[in-house]
């Protein structure tokens, strides 16, 4: 059990105390291909579940990342400014996008766990 939760839009969320680390999955970074820029929100931004959280620019297109839960952005991964390819290289670790203070912890329950996400990927 890793404590990871996943959306059908291929965001992940990792609970660390009262905060959640948000990024995109390995499947998502593979789909996007070479990532050249990540447009991150400002610290303090409040997002609702499903609203736009960030934009990831690959060589070929811009793709939106949606907030997996409602909350407030308390930190962004500044390293991506110089090294956006970290999202390709290490989506679950060095390539995380933002940390959220989760407003309604119940929302995480509706997200898929690792096994659920693995099964979901097989349906695509």
């Amino acid at each position, binding site marked *: 059990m890793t404590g990871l939760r996943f959306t059908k839009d291929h965001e992940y969320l990792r609970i660390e105390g009262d905060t959640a680390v948000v990024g995109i999955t390995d499947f998502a970074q593979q*789909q996007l*291909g070479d990532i050249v820029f990540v447009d991150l929100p400002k610290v303090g931004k409040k997002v609702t579940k499903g609203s736009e959280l960030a934009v990831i620019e690959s060589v070929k297109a811009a793709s939106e990342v949606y907030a997996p839960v409602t909350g407030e952005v308390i930190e962004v991964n500044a390293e991506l400014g110089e090294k956006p390819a970290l999202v390709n290289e290490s989506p679950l670790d060095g390539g995380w996008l933002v940390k959220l203070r989760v407003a309604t912890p119940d929302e995480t329950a509706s997200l898929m766990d690792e096994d659920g996400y693995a099964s979901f990927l097989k349906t695509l």
Partner: protein
Amino acid sequence: MTAQPNPENAPLSALPLDALHRARGARMAPFAGYDMPLQYAAGIVSETLHTRQKAGLFDVSHMGQAILAGAGAARALESLAPADLVGLAPGRTRYTQLLNDKGGILDDLMVTRLPGVEERLLLVVNASRKADDFALIRERLPQFDLLVLNRALIAVQGPRAASVLGALLPGAEDLPFLAWQAFEQGPASVFVSRSGYTGEDGFEISLRPENAEGFVTALLDNGDVGLAGLGARDALRLEAGLPLYGHDLDETTDPVEAGLAWSIGKRRRAEGGFPGFARISAGLRDGPARLRVGLLPMSKAPVREGAMLITPNGEVVGHVTSGGFSPTLQRPIAMGYVARSHAQTGAQLATDLRGTRVQLDVARLPFVAHRYFKPREAA
């Protein structure tokens, strides 16, 4: 994350090399009615760089190929396109456009005058336009035979392309730029044109679908050759400042504002006899109202197609028609149309990118210098 767009719900045609692409790790995507390799495992950046450094191999079998045959075919095709086709020597290829009555571009294409006594023109047109192109030609030039070819089309592009292809088809490496030759390979004829769409030296090779896999496999056995998909092709052509139909060219743009006046022959400028001559002639004489230009965004984020271009006063003077990230230059690049008053190199424009103002400087095209093969002139 946004789902990958899949705008085309119609059944997709498969390329003759579909199985080879999948076996070699292609990610396929719908494009112009075909299931096309968008990229392979190496990815768009590395496929682009490999093409610039060695040789990239592209499957462009989705494009339309046809032969227009009959005495007077070149003269007749000049009624639809502004290039000097009558003056095209046998075995030579020229770039031109099919025009509507207002001089707008219906498609851009390559025309080769095939060698031989009979007058035959080989046409290579865009996949997205081929059905309309061929219908137009049949309707407007009914006295000629238009034979649509069912052949695979492979592009080998990059500084090693000539040595790689020459090893399989001796003599191909000596073809001049925009020359065409048929090579016999067993019982089948392989058409080779020294041309392409990356800005690099390279070749387009047309061959029978059943021979394509063997030929491509033999090319790929050479360590200098790497498969490259549509994503790399788009990055390369944007770096090379080459316009793409449906993006930088459409029925509203004429060849002069598109920066393609060089493709209109001297005789044609004087004589006319092609659709939209009045507009094109005025554009050649007075300069067009707007021009296709290069744009360098002063941002780390790419500026994409559709972005409006504004002056420091907020006046809209153009828009972006192609934009992305240049793997070669490691920065965003773009092309677009700009009012002539703001089209000089160095002019500063701006756009709004997700609520942030981004400066774009008008830049000379191409972003990456062309390296077409031009044999040294005899001393």
